[in-house]
């Protein structure tokens, strides 16, 4: 059922072309869903997010391989539903999700987040979880978090004194 719906929505979707989306070979996404994913991620993360997460589209596409096929299908369907259903009518003309400004897309995200419908809240959670986790998996975002990276790349991390000294014998805290 989801497959038939996806095919129909994919045929009718006409996402905004973006020069930033240069990927041409996909495992799970296609050109249209990649463009919608970009529009979603731009709404969640802000303009220019690819500067710090240049492999964003490829990372999500690869990650989808590991999902349960039915859940993967639901995520792709959610992208297509967002594009074909969640637009706004502006000046009498319907603009689909990816053709809206970032501010307008964020208004839609806000409505999804607070919806009484479980499905819409789940779509919000899926969009922000995928976008935020993929973005913050990029090394380029780590300095602003103060994250020094992983120990196999930076063994010196393990030799740094911890912010509060370990107490090897008495586990009870010492009141400062």
């Amino acid at each position, binding site marked *: 059922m989801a497959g038939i719906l996806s095919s129909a929505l994919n045929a009718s979707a006409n996402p905004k072309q973006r020069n930033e989306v240069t990927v041409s070979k996909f495992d799970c996404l296609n050109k249209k869903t990649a463009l919608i994913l970009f529009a979603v991620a731009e709404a969640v993360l802000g303009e220019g997010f690819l500067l710090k997460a240049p492999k964003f589209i490829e990372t999500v596409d690869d*990650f989808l391989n590991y999902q349960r096929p*039915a859940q993967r299908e639901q995520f792709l369907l959610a992208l297509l539903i967002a594009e074909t259903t969640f637009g706004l009518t502006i000046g009498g003309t319907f603009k689909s999700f990816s053709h809206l400004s970032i501010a307008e897309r*964020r208004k839609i995200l806000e409505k999804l987040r607070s919806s009484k419908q479980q499905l819409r809240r789940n779509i919000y959670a899926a969009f922000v979880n995928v976008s935020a986790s993929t973005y913050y998996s990029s090394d380029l975002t780590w300095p602003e978090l103060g994250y020094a990276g992983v*120990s196999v790349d930076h063994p010196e991390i*393990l030799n740094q004194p*911890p*912010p509060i000294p370990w*107490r090897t014998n008495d586990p009870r805290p010492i009141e400062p």
Partner: protein
Amino acid sequence: MAGTIVEGRQVSENRTLTPDFCIIGSGAAGGVCALKLSEAGFDVVVLEEGPNIPKEKGPAPGQERKMLNEREVEMYKLLYQEGATRLSKNGGVKVLQGRCLGGGTAVNWSACLPPRLETLDEWQKRGLPFTRQNLEPYLREVVNYLPVVRNDKYNTSAQKFMLGCARHDIPHENLPNNTNKCRECGSCGVGCPYDRKMSGFVKWLPDAVALGATIYTDTKVDRLISSNDRISEVQAHFIDAKTRPTKRKLVVKPTKGVLLAAGAIGTPSILLRSDLNLDKRVGRYTHIHPVTITLGKYPENTFPAYGVPDNMWTPKFSTGPTGFLIETGSFYPVFSASATLQHGDELHRIMRDYYQTGAISYAHHTTGFDDKEKYGTVELDENGDPQLDYTIPKANLKPMQESLVMMTRIHLAAGATSVYIMRNPPLEVKPGDTFDEIRNINFLESQRASIFTVHVMGGCQMNKDDKRRCVNNDFTFKGKKNLWVVDASIFPTALGANPQVTIYSLALWASREICEQHQKPFKFNHQQGGELPWPGF
């Protein structure tokens, strides 16, 4: 003669095997049974859906597993079910489960608690044979073999928790770990690259292989074939690095039997695919420990990714049918971002504020004690893959709110300038605020807050009640003489404690039953030592 590990992705032809026993799953239960049955002289084949984690030196000093690079997204894909994106059917609970050599033992935070005594009492009422006294040699074997140790090096999250608890006069204790000379990299949850966590692929499984066991990784079990009251065949297929079928099949025709150790979602799903549903009992009454999380923001940098993740807890709130265990942990950028339920500038602000100066505490909530409650059900989706239908039980709503209140109080007492609750939208509580908004969080509806679980139990339970029983007290599956269920799916309720040690102990017990049924020796090899490391047990 030593056995071997065969990577299914490399197998280029269909294969048929005829061992004594076929064990499905290489996690906590599968590893124990593989070792003990090999030790008894049986020819054992273990089938693991996830990849091999070979022992191979990496570029970092002391790195014993090159494949384990601590990078979250890569490790989630490699080590977790569904890339760590497994969700309950309604989308409301994130279910984190291992899917690799060693299963959950490869990705857990090394926490080693014994079974909760009142849970054992409840299980006895339901006809299970386990008591505090008769479990002791099994627990002792686990404690000495791994070993289970007291690690007194506390990360910042633990230190803040200890301080906050002390100021509220809340008792708190060391939580023992199965680590050995831990390097405190903080990466237990994405696989220890240094072999300092005594996971299945460091201890049980290589010891089993040394005694002749063969392990097939990248091998997904399709179904069991029955012949009257016995299982005659296990049908499986190999999968590639991206979990896609390779088109090569494996058939195992064990001469003595099959052990199901695929975990409390995997085991029921294999039974359901095999039409062994016992009048629809299989998969029902599946339990989790729903987890609530708080992040405190402190005036100084906290380096929350590093240090021992899970070695401090309070037992104060852990009693009763809906009690909760508050523990401390580590957290990492992707894990944090995936739970934030926020977008735009606020998302980045929360990440900046709560990452570099954050400390985490979280609570595992006990469930499963109310016979009138439905709890969870493992089902098959349209592709035959498992999904967990689960809604938070009403009885847990207030405890989940109160665990957040208590953790918030502890953070604030320890000096946090604010506490972040993963509500939708995010909630920040500051000193002097009331806790009314926390007490209004509706966990019963999906995505009103981020809820995780890392412990799944039940679904194929041991029980004296015929309407619920799937597994007999000797661990045999009802109606099948040569099929044993040896993992946490036999639990009739949630455990109310981190289940690793209990699963090991019950798998030892099951191994003894199987050895005795086949007139083979079962022996304890590690009974030395005095007190167990849990003062309250």
